[in-house]
Structures are given as structure tokens and as C-alpha cells.
């Protein structure tokens, strides 16, 4: 081949001297569609919220304008927001702890090989697919004091004497809200941990057994360390999702009775889209976002420490 470089080759020559600049250009251009979508749905809303949080902005009423820190002062002086914050953390903490505990137990049981375990493990995936709205509605109907099956059977079996208005009292409403979340997401945790358990090698276990370790020490020293990354993944993902929970509580209790189960998400939604006070909702949203980003940072650090999914 003795042909001189064709124009095409000359062009390639330019592009292929892939300097780091060109690599960067290529990388960012590949990233740009995803970045655009994510910027539209995270940074842009955050900036808008920040801007509006210093304004009086009422979707219906007149007179929007700059109000300084007034929205923030209102946010921090409203007892409803404080109780909403308490409700949120209460909801996240209790449901995540229950889901992890029950999920671990379920995973350990499923890890024993009985003829039916594969079938059971397969069926346990079903709750994750049910739309939260649907499961919340079903819980609501089942907990109905007049027609619900739960009260009926509890009475029939003599566990309670009078029907309970589950969603009518703060404590039982909380029980219902947590039960719904636990029902929907414990199997998720269990399936992650089951996948982790199936990777626990037999050899160290056998070696430890020969060394005379009992089942508890075996679990503590052999099984648990292997499960650690899986527990971290389940914990982090569940925590983040629990902070975002909206639909299921909205449908099940709508924050009631009173505002006893009104987590921040419902609070914000109500202020913005039912009271149309966008300024105050934005201020609350910004505060919530700040707290969440601090928490997320910690959670992702946990993920980075316990798993290799964050590695370069």
C-alpha cells in the first residue's frame, strides 16, 4: 500500500490524537442527555425552590413579591412542621429497623433448604410489584371498622371485643402506616439478604464448626461479615426510599387523624397544592432537602465503605 493519506484519514488523524480534552468532550457529550434530564429534575427544581422560598408566591391569591426570610421564619415557627419532622423520622426509623430485622429473619429461614423454599422465595417478590396506592387502598378497606376483615376476624377469634377504628386514632393509625410499609418492603430486604446468604462460603463455616463454634458465634463471626455489604445496600436503599414515601401514606391516612401521621412530604404537598402557599412550601422543601442531602452523604459513605459498588 503506497497510497497517500486520503482526506478521510487526515480527518481521523486529527480526532484520534485523542488528547484528554477530546476524551472529555466525548465523555460529556455522551453524558449530556442524562445530565439534562437530571438537571431538569433536580438542580433546576432546587434553584427554583430556593428562589421562591424568599418570596410570597400564592398560586391563587395576588401579590407575589420578595419577603426575605419570612417563609423560613414561618416554617420554623409552625408546630405542624416540627411534628411533621418528628413523624418523618419516626416513620423512617421504625419501618427501616423492622424491615431489616424481619427481613434478616426471613432470609435466614429461607436459607434453610426445604422443598418449598424456592417457591416461597419466588412468591415473596410479589409485594414489591404492587403499586403503593393499591396496597394502601387494600389496607384501608381491610381496616375499615364497619366492613373490614381485620376487625371482623380479630373479634371472631376473641382478640378484641369491640371493633377498632384503626385509622381514627393516632397510635393505631401509626401501626397501620408502619404495617403497610413493612408488608410492602420486608420481602425486598429479605431477598437482598438471601442473595447475600447464598454467597456465604461453606468452608469457613465448616472450619469454625470443627473449632467448636456454636450457631450464634457462627452467625456473628462468619455469616454476618459476609452479609455486611448486603445489609448496607438494603439499609441505605430502604432509608432513602422511606424518606421519599408519599403515595401510600397519602392514600391510607392522608396524614390523619388530625396531622398525626403527616410526614414532611405530605406537609409540603398540602401547603403547596392545597393551601397554594408555594413560598412556604418551598422554604420547607429547601430545609428538608438540606437535611436529606446531609443524611444521603452519610448513607452513601456507608455504602462506599461496606461495598465495592462506589469504586472507580
Amino acid at each position, binding site marked *: 500500500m503506497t497510497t497517500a493519506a486520503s482526506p478521510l484519514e487526515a480527518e481521523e488523524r486529527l480526532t484520534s490524537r485523542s488528547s484528554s480534552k477530546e476524551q*472529555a468532550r466525548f*465523555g460529556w457529550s455522551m453524558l449530556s442527555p442524562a445530565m439534562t434530564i437530571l438537571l431538569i*429534575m433536580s438542580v433546576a427544581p432546587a434553584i427554583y425552590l430556593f428562589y421562591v422560598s424568599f418570596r410570597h408566591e400564592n398560586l391563587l391569591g395576588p401579590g407575589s413579591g420578595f419577603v426575605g426570610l419570612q417563609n423560613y421564619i414561618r416554617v420554623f415557627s409552625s408546630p405542624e412542621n416540627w411534628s411533621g419532622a418528628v413523624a418523618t423520622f419516626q416513620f423512617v426509623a421504625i419501618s427501616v429497623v423492622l424491615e431489616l430485622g424481619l427481613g434478616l429473619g426471613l432470609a435466614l429461614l429461607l436459607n434453610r433448604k426445604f422443598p418449598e423454599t424456592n417457591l416461597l422465595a419466588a412468591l415473596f417478590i*410479589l409485594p414489591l410489584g404492587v403499586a403503593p396506592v393499591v396496597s394502601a387502598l387494600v389496607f384501608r378497606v381491610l381496616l375499615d371498622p364497619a366492613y373490614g376483615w381485620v376487625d371482623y376476624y380479630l373479634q371472631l377469634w376473641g382478640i378484641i371485643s369491640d371493633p377498632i377504628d384503626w385509622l381514627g386514632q393516632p397510635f393505631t393509625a401509626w401501626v397501620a402506616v408502619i404495617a403497610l410499609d413493612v*408488608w410492602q418492603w420486608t420481602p425486598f430486604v429479605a431477598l437482598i439478604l438471601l442473595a447475600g446468604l447464598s454467597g456465604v462460603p461453606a468452608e469457613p463455616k465448616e472450619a469454625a464448626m470443627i473449632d467448636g463454634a456454636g450457631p450464634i458465634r457462627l452467625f456473628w463471626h462468619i455469616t454476618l461479615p459476609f452479609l455486611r455489604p448486603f445489609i448496607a445496600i438494603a439499609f441505605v436503599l430502604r432509608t432513602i426510599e422511606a424518606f421519599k414515601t408519599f403515595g401510600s401514606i397519602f392514600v391510607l391516612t392522608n396524614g390523619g387523624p388530625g396531622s398525626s401521621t403527616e410526614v414532611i412530604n405530605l406537609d409540603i404537598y398540602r401547603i403547596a397544592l392545597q393551601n397554594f402557599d408555594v413560598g412556604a412550601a418551598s422554604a420547607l422543601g429547601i430545609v428538608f432537602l438540606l437535611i436529606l442531602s446531609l443524611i444521603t452523604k452519610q448513607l452513601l459513605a456507608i455504602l462506599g465503605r461496606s461495598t465495592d459498588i462506589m469504586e472507580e
Partner: protein
Amino acid sequence: MSWLGKLITRVVLWLALVIVMFPILWVLLTSFKPAELAQALPPIWDFMPTLQNYRDVLSGNTYTSQVFGVLLNHTIIVTLSSTLLGLAAAVPAAYALARVKFAGRQATANWILSTIMFPPAVSVIPVFVIASRLGLTDTWPVLVVPYAAFGLPMMIWMLRSAIKQIPFEIEEAAMVDGASRGQIIWHIVLPLLTPSIVSASLLAGMLAWNEFLFALTLSRSAIKTAPVGISEFTSMYGTQWGTLTAAATVTVAPILLIALLLRRRVIEGLTFGAVK
């Protein structure tokens, strides 16, 4: 383990199954009950199964404002388009994060992951306000773009780790074989990514299919989705259990069937690919 231990284990497992399955089976059972028996107490267990509830739901013979079948169609459209949009954005992004060297790569990847913490209840406010101002409420993009965004971090992270597991030498072999970067992605990377793409799409699809808040806030009738429609079965004139459960069944069944069939892939998706 002693026989007693085994027995207890199995009893507990079956009990857990009953608890897990009960709400789902209750929906299924009630959806086939004649309307007048649905709310009866004590619960009626032997009845002539009827498809009347399904007929009512799908033909619009309910108290809700719209025929449920139409809402299902909307759900399908929104789910497919947001998943495809997400995929189209996620594959090149994941490739860049896995294979292209540039400053800020890891920071970008971490930032993308951290966007999963943005609560939809917060982001819905600006989206709602701006969509109203631009007259975009009740149009496809106001659901499709946010749903794509909800699924994106997971898709990108999953595909990125899957791409990293493809030995780079295979791509180099393709370069030497005369493939351009685009051809390498199309002929080599994409086929090898198929399982992960299925996982990621399944999860993104499930998120979109089941999403409630944005659909509730941003749709009126033209794009109203099934979850919003279902929530209306209770709010209008009390609850009609028969049609409610039938609507719930048609909404949930496709997802559950897919989840059962492609269990591994679904779990892989739910855990961002951390559990294979």
C-alpha cells in the same frame, strides 16, 4: 437441626407467606365476587365467580369520570416512553462513566447517584408551577421526563458496573477489527449488556407504572394514569370494592407476572445491580 426446629421454621415461613399473600389474594378474590356480596360480613367464601366487575371497570360502568381501560393505556404509554427515554440517556452516560477518562468523572457519577434522594413531593412543586405557567399540565412530557429521571440514577449505576465488567480488551479487539466507537457500543457493548438492560428497564418501568404523586398532581384527563384512577374509586361515592379490586387487579397483574417471571432481573434492578 432438630425436627422441632425444622417444623417451627416451616410454620413461620408459611405464616409469612400467608401474610405476604393475603392482601393480594383478597384483591383477586373480591374482584370476582358479585358486587352485592363484596362487602358482606361475615365474609362469603363460596360464591359464583363473576367477571362483571372487570366488565364494568373496562367499559366505564363505574362512578369514576373516565373509562379505566383508557387510564391503563395512558399508564402503558407513559411507562414505555419514560423507560425508553431513560434507557437512551442511561446507556451512553454509563458508557462514558465506565470507559472514558475525564476530570470529574467519579464526582459526576456520585452526584448522579445522590439525586435519588430528591423527594418527589419536593420536586413536584416547581414542576407543577412551571408546567402550569407553560400550559404543559396534562401533557405527556410532564410525566415522561420526571419518570425517566426517577429511574436514571439506578439505570446509570447498574449499567456502569455492568460495562466495567466487560473486559476492555474485547473493545480493543473490536477497534483493531476496524470498529468505530459507535459500532463498538452497538455491536459489542449493547449485546453484552442485555441482562442488565432488562433489569434496569424492569425497575424503571415498575417505578413509572406505579407512580402516583406526579400523576395525581400533573394529570387531569388526557394523561391520567391507572394508580390515580384507582385512588378515585374510593373518594367519589364511598368505596365500591368490586370495581376497585378489579381495577387493582388489572393494574397490578402485569407487573406481578413480569416480576415472577424475571425475578433475578428485578432484584438486580432494585439493588442497583449490587445483587446479581
